[in-house]
């Protein structure tokens, strides 16, 4: 998970990042399970080569989650594709922008609206073919606290278009 801030001190927000990651993964897991997918964490994979290769994909998360597979990613995916086991790789990306709120100037009548937004993106990639088998994105014009039910709702919306049949593509 990658979160991006425009102005806040990122060190002070590490526990918040952890909470977002846990919440995002939790909703993603339940959404996948309801579509008969079994989500494995990197650490639970039996092959250390697979773990190492997946770690190499991490810096490319933001591209992969929107379905953009560049040459670097293609090479790593090709190597993962040769490993035993028929896996798909799920990539999730979340970008939260916390901006100033709306303003109103009673003298001129000028108004502005808030700049906050949250972007959720996910893609399911087949390493054996190097192709994106499914992708989706949800953009909310708000920055929800992790405890807000609308956060979970947005992640559920992200996975709504994922069908169990995608695994065979």
């Amino acid at each position, binding site marked *: 998970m990658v979160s991006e801030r425009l102005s806040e001190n990122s060190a002070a927000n590490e526990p918040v990042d952890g909470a977002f990651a846990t919440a995002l993964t939790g909703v993603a897991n339940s959404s996948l399970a309801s579509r008969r997918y079994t989500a494995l964490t990197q650490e639970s994979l039996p092959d250390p080569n697979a773990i190492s290769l997946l770690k190499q994909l991490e810096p490319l998360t933001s591209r992969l989650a929107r379905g953009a597979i560049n040459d670097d990613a293609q090479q790593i995916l090709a190597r993962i594709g040769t490993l035993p086991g028929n896996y798909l790789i799920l990539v999730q990306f979340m970008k939260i922008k916390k901006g100033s709120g709306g303003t109103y100037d009673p003298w001129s009548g*000028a*108004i502005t609206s808030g700049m906050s937004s949250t972007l959720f993106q996910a893609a399911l990639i087949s390493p054996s073919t190097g192709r994106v088998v499914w992708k989706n994105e949800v953009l909310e014009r708000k920055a929800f606290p992790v405890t807000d039910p609308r956060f979970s709702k947005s992640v559920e919306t992200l996975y709504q278009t994922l069908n169990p049949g995608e695994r065979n593509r």
Partner: protein
Amino acid sequence: MKSLAIKLSLFSLALAVLPANCFAKKHEQPPVEPRFMAISRIEMLPMLDFRVDKKDKINFKTLSKIAADTLRKRNYVAYPNDNAGTAGEIAEEDLNDAKLEWVKRLGPPEARWVMIIGLNDVHSKMSFGSTGNAEMFGVLFDKRDGSVVWKKTALGKQGQGGLIGMAAKGAMAESAAETAVTNLLDDIPKRPDGYFPKSEPEPQPQITNAVVPVAPPAPPPAAQTSLVIDSIPAGADIEIDGAFVGSAPSTVGVAPGSHQIAVKMKGFADWTKTLNVSGGTVHLSAELERASQ
């Protein structure tokens, strides 16, 4: 007595004014950094659209013109250039950690300073009026060493309450984007009026008492051709003369002459064409046919 009083009051006025004149600092512009003074011409590559939400229509040509005009007012030679080079499809991430090899492929080969401006987001909203928000970013590369001369992200906000604002809803997004592009370039330092950098002398080899063959002067660089390549379905790989250059749709610059263009996508038959180009812009639309099973 009266005259003395006037003299005294004039004296005290002079005392009051004197310190202000003596100690007031002249408002001086800080000197422009050498990296900005060295710039002879900025090629402004086609504006990039990184928006997830593309509901609002934006005129990118207008934004490019505003950006070029802003730079010219700061005494830079800056022109929009449709030739994005051979770097392929540019992603936001490419700009954050750009490698020298990749930077060298941006824009026309002969260009040294290339500026890329991208639109990250634009959003308009109507409530008791209407508002528009925009976020843009820009990077200025020096292709000689791949360094980033300038980089910035900027916001633009517009809004008006009441019926006037509601009536202007359609223009708010565009207006916010225009504000964002102006804000984006506001920290590029203004160079002195009429300034133009002296061209740098090419390093000359030290030769003493030697007869050296003199090569004829090199011909001027030939004009590049911009190939605007699109595919149906979109996203196919583009190869030029056997080398992958990006995914469709892309604009790729090629040297004059004959080139083999291939557009490939898994599940579809390869689309190939041989082109002989001599300059200008050539549009190619590759309609891919499903491969027979």
